[in-house]
């Protein structure tokens, strides 16, 4: 299939990571009594953001490789038909 799953996964986790980390920066610290005093939104949001970015990079690289391979095979096809 033409859609590399790593792209939507990467985008989703980047968006959720940004939302959580941003909320963690600006939220009232009192809500973190539940998470043992740890700003879990900021920390985990950061982890998800990094994961999301890595997935986007991997997905893009694969798409670029596939496009390059398609162009190469098209080119080979054209030159082959030219020879015919």
């Amino acid at each position: 299939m033409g859609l590399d799953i790593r792209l939507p996964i990467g985008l989703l986790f980047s968006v959720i990571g940004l939302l959580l980390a941003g909320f963690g920066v600006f939220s009232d610290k009192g809500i973190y009594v539940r998470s043992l005093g740890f700003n879990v939104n900021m920390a985990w949001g950061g982890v998800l953001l990094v994961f999301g970015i890595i997935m986007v990079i991997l997905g893009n690289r694969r798409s670029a490789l596939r496009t390059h391979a398609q162009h190469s095979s098209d080119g080979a096809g054209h030159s082959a038909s030219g020879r015919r």
Partner: protein
Amino acid sequence: MGLTSIDWIIMGVYSLFVLGIGVALKRYMKTSADFFLAGRSIPAWVCGLAFISANLGAQEVIGMGASGAKYGIATSHFYWIGAIPAMAFVGIFMMPFYYGSRARSVPEYLRLRFDEKTRGLNAISFATMTVFSSGISMYAMAKLIQTLHVLDAPLKGLGLPLSASFHFSVVISAIIVLAYVILGGLVSAIYNEVLQFFLIVAGFLPLVLLGLKDVGGWSGIKAQLPTACTHSWQGMGSAHTNPLGVEWFGLVMGLGFVLSFGYWCTDFLVVQRAMAAESMSAARRTPLIAALPKMVFPFLVILPGLIAVALPAQRASVSSGVKSEVVAGSRGLIPPKIDNSSGLPVLDANGNPVFDYDLAIPNMLVHYFPTGILGLGLTALLASFMSGMAGNVTAFNTVWTYDIYQAYLHKDASDQHYLWMGRMATVFGIVLSVAAAYAATRFNNIMDFLQLVFAFVNAPLFATFLLGMFWKRTTGHAAFGGLLSGTAAAAIHQGLTLPAGAVPGIKGGWLGTVHVYPSEMAQNFWTAIWAWSVCFLVTILVSFITKPRKEDELVGLVYSLTDRVSEGDVTWYKRPEVLGGVVLGLALLLNVIFW
């Protein structure tokens, strides 16, 4: 439950992505093979993650957390004994026949190997089962949303009664699943299952880390709980000396062999994910790749249950009862079950409170997660429910279209017609699931009864496949007779036995009681053992007295008549035998560590 805007935004973003994947994939759905088989174009790692995620419905997540709280780390047997060996077996030995025979479904393999009637029996029972499973998933999700009071604030804002929560949950989940499956078919379901896998890890890993920090790590759990809860094999010599109430032979043979191999090796819901792989090699690697995360999942879904009971007793944040003041007598974070008519705790035969273990994971989420990450945890739960539904719906639309509609109702239609029928099957599969969800609210016993019947039908299946794939003498009449007699044996065994403390009825003993098992789990395992054994023996006996098929008709369908798959051009560490050895070795190691 105290959700704020950030939690709703996270759930909304997830829903948009799910629908977006369906929309993005719609343009690739040109033929029925694209819709039902994902064009056989999916990489092994994607199929592998979908392979376990299709099984990772919320009943699994909630149920394993509940079992972890109730039985302890012995629940890991459902993974390390009850899944990994079967996943290695299907990858190494069975996938060459499923993928190599070019069958489009498991029932179709049965037609190629045996005959039409065996395919029909399997297709009809499987299609019915998937619709009800999807409905049960929908029902469970709507009940959980109701219990967690997720929709209370929006409903109050709209001036609607709180009882509308159930209807909203069912309708919204049905619309989302319908939209993305009808648009992108199996690929859409697989992609969303992969998304769900990462969401579950993202939602549950911080929960486990926070919980472990709070209770003082694994050593803290061991200090708080009885030894039986922190060892998986101790006391397995007898059914009376371990929390599961089953001895080692019943566990290994019933769960580790019959039920586990019956599910992972023959259930089209999971096998379909491997059949969508881009090559034979990728299809064989699919279950083996899936086995790697599968074996560490106990740390994500069972451990929260153990942490919930290792914490000091406190009033649970979430309870299913109507009167919150009676929820004080909790076991850790687990509230007692409340009788809704009297508002008092439910007591067992000895007068002890019965705990509502299903609330272990929801209570852990509310206990440790502040707003923000609470939305992520809830999204992970909802994602697992919806993926469970979508997995069943995609398996249903394929079996309906190829094995029932094309086989019996409309044989020679165009490919475009079958593509259209697949989309229609998705619509009525979802409509039937909604009907099943509402049936469960009115007739809970009927759903229990149906699940029991499906268990009877499934238990003998692996004997049929094992003989069919590895003994060329097995005949179609024998397979059909074996399946029917195995199902009958399961029903008779269940009808003659009872779990301790149960009364005759849906739990067994409806033909009389000749044996009482220490637990319901032991009864289930032994029912499966009887069903499998009878099916195995009857199939062999009938095969000897009926005419076998010609050998040249069985090439590609039977082990001894099929060339071994060559993995010569595959890197050594990607070869199924190597991967299989690694996953079995790791599973053994985990069993030893938690012995």
